[in-house]
Structures are given as structure tokens and as C-alpha cells.
């Protein structure tokens, strides 16, 4: 099993393997949405999970999400952990508790089955940590391995965090440092340091559970998790869906230091440039900024942190309690949804 290098079997990896947002929106917009009176959040708002009102009443809603991707790390167990943490994150980003998960697997029939076992064990370890249970799954024979979960969670309807609802006067909090997409590309190039690699893996395998739990009783107006569309991409979605503008303070945005160095060496993933192209005209930069610091804001994250928009008082408290950074503030809508200062 040692000879297997998972990342060399795939062209794109992790959340960077997402179809470019522009192409995806073109197709989705042409199809038209389905509706149901009990579907509280569906396709339209580009939310992290759908929200469905349960017929049993009691004010509870069901949250559902599905997320899977090709490997971004070589170790199958770690890949399983990252993919599961990433899929579970969508439930946390909606303010819910994950409860039931189903495995989604694509696996080459010629590959050592021990690799599959390790992927599933890694996934299971994170599902267990989240307090949910794996209830089944589906496996397809495919040329490149892919893994992820379909996760169901629950929340009281009035406690659900959508990616809209952000209010002028709110502060914005980011719960993980940026840069894992760039570091994964540097790893692929064989140019990443062991330390950088470890930092990225630790970040990607960390559940957003603690970030969610500490925010559960705070005055959260909007939330999302940062994945393939980058901090700016997801912030843009939240700002436009909320009809406000965000002012982001670049100096306060946490980054994995090594990613800045790798970005300046041109080790940026392709998805970073797709994100930048998609957001052209929607972001204003004020003042001088190093190119690498700008790049990292477009870096596709795999299993990234939560972006929370909450009332200033609660945001300050949350930041003190958790150590997570306040990265910006919400203002009345201006000509540009995002201003980076």
C-alpha cells in the first residue's frame, strides 16, 4: 500500500476540483428550480445545505448536504478525514448538528482494497468525532478515487444560519487560516516543507464543530464555510445575498505563513485564477498589497473554516472566547460588494 500516491492519480484535487462557478451557474440558471412549501432553503441562495421543515412539527428542520472530491493528500486515512470534515462542515455552517452520514465512494477496481479501507476508516473517525453515525453508502468503480459524504443534520428552524441575513454593523469572523489550496499545490510540486504540509493537514482535518458550538448561542446573522470558491468568493455570495457590502481588513485575515511564500513562487492552484476571474469587478482593493496576500484571498480552500456574520457585541465576545479573528465589518451596500483594505 505504501507505493500508492493518491494525489498523482488525479488532475484536480479537493475543493479545487469544483466546476468553475461561472460554468456551474450558467447551467443551473438554465434549468429552473423545484419548489416545495416545506423547503425553506433550496438552490437559489447557494446555501451550504438545504433546509427542509419536518412534517412532525416542533419547529425542527432537517439539513442535508452532499460533498465529495478527489484526494488532495496521499495518505488514504488522512484523505478520508479531510473529505469527511469537509462534508460535515456544511451542516455546521448552517447552524445544525450532523446526525446521519452516508459514504460516497469512487474507487479504481485495480487498486489495493486496503487503500479503500483506510479512506473509510479516516472518514468514520471524523463522523464519530462529530457525534453522528455512518448509516450506509454507495461505491462506484472509477478511474480516479473520490470520497465524501451525504450528511443529514437537524436544527431548530429559528436557529438556522443561512448565507444571507448579514446586517450592516455586524462583524465578520473567520475560524481557520487560509492557504491550504496553495500548500496542496506546493506539495504536488514537491516544494512544500514538512511543517507547511502538517499545518495544512491539521487545518483540513479539523472539524468546524467547536467553531459552531461556541457560536450556537450567539447572535449570528449569516454563516457559510469557506471552500472551493475562496474567502472572497464565499464572502461575495454572502454580501450580495444579504444586500450589504463587506469591508475586509487584509492584515487581520489569518493565513498559513508558508502559503504566501509558495504563492509568490507561482504555486497557485488553477481554481485560484478561476475564482479571481469570476469575481472580477466585484472586489475593490484599497492601497498597496503584496500580490501573494491578494492571491491567498482567492485560494480555493478544502475543508475551510466558517465565515460568521454576527452582531458586533457578540462577535467581540466570540472572538475573545475562541481566539478566532475578526476580519472585517458589514456596511450598507456600496458600489462594490467587497472592499479589501
Amino acid at each position, binding site marked *: 500500500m505504501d507505493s500508492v500516491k493518491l494525489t498523482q492519480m488525479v488532475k484536480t484535487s479537493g475543493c479545487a476540483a469544483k466546476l468553475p462557478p461561472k460554468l456551474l451557474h450558467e447551467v443551473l440558471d438554465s434549468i429552473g428550480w423545484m419548489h416545495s412549501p416545506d423547503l425553506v432553503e433550496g438552490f437559489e441562495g447557494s446555501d451550504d445545505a438545504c433546509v427542509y421543515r419536518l412534517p412532525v412539527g416542533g419547529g425542527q428542520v432537517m439539513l442535508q448536504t452532499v460533498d465529495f472530491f478527489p484526494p488532495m493528500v496521499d495518505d488514504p486515512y488522512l484523505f478520508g478525514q479531510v473529505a469527511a470534515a469537509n462534508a460535515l462542515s456544511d451542516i455546521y455552517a448552517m447552524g445544525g448538528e450532523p446526525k446521519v452520514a452516508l459514504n460516497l465512494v469512487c474507487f479504481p477496481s485495480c487498486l489495493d482494497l486496503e487503500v479503500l479501507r483506510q479512506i473509510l476508516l479516516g472518514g468514520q473517525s471524523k463522523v464519530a468525532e462529530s457525534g453522528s453515525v455512518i448509516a450506509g453508502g454507495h461505491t462506484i468503480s472509477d478511474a480516479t478515487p473520490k470520497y465524501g459524504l451525504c450528511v443529514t443534520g437537524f436544527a431548530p428552524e429559528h436557529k438556522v444560519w443561512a448565507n444571507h441575513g448579514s446586517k450592516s454593523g455586524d462583524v465578520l469572523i473567520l475560524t481557520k487560516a487560509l492557504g491550504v489550496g496553495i500548500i496542496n499545490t506546493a506539495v504536488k510540486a*514537491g516544494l512544500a516543507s514538512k511543517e507547511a504540509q502538517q499545518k495544512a493537514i491539521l487545518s483540513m482535518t479539523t472539524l468546524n464543530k467547536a467553531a459552531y458550538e461556541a457560536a450556537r448561542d450567539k447572535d449570528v446573522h449569516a454563516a457559510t464555510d469557506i471552500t472551493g470558491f475562496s474567502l472572497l468568493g464565499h464572502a461575495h455570495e454572502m454580501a450580495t445575498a444579504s444586500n450589504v457590502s463587506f469591508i475586509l481588513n487584509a492584515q487581520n485575515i489569518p493565513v498559513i505563513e508558508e502559503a504566501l511564500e509558495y504563492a*509568490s513562487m507561482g504555486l*497557485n492552484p488553477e481554481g485560484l485564477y478561476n475564482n479571481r476571474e469570476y469575481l472580477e469587478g466585484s472586489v475593490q482593493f484599497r492601497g498597496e498589497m503584496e500580490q501573494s496576500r491578494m492571491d491567498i484571498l482567492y485560494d480555493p480552500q478544502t475543508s475551510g473554516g466558517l465565515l460568521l456574520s454576527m452582531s458586533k457585541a457578540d462577535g467581540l465576545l466570540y472572538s475573545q472566547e475562541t481566539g478566532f479573528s475578526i476580519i472585517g465589518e458589514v456596511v450598507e451596500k456600496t458600489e462594490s460588494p467587497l472592499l479589501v483594505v
Partner: protein
Amino acid sequence: MQIVDTRGLSCPQPVIETKKAIDAKAVELQVLVDTIAAKENVSRYAKAAKFSVSTAETEYGWTLELKKL
């Protein structure tokens, strides 16, 4: 002048190929790229390695001319 053809390669391969040429002491080289990502990344790498970059658009993408500063 040495030509490094990175067309059809996905990131980070174009940077790796450019790095190989520069590590082998090339002082002037042309890098052929066919994606925006490769153009941007090779330009960043060249600047980090203290090379000047001039970019010309071609029918297949871009030619980047790198010269040691």
C-alpha cells in the same frame, strides 16, 4: 534560446518545468503556456527567481520570455 513547452500541462507542472530549466542555469528562455493559470504562475516564479518577464499573446496562448536580471 531554450524553449520550454508547457502547453497541455496543468498546474503546478508548468512552474516545475520552468524551474528545471532555470536550475539548469538557463539565463534566457521562452516558456509556452496555454492557460491563464500557467501564465500567471510562471510569471510569479520567474520574478521570484529574479528573471524579467515579457509576455506575448499567440494563437495557442502566450509566450513568456524570461531573462535573468
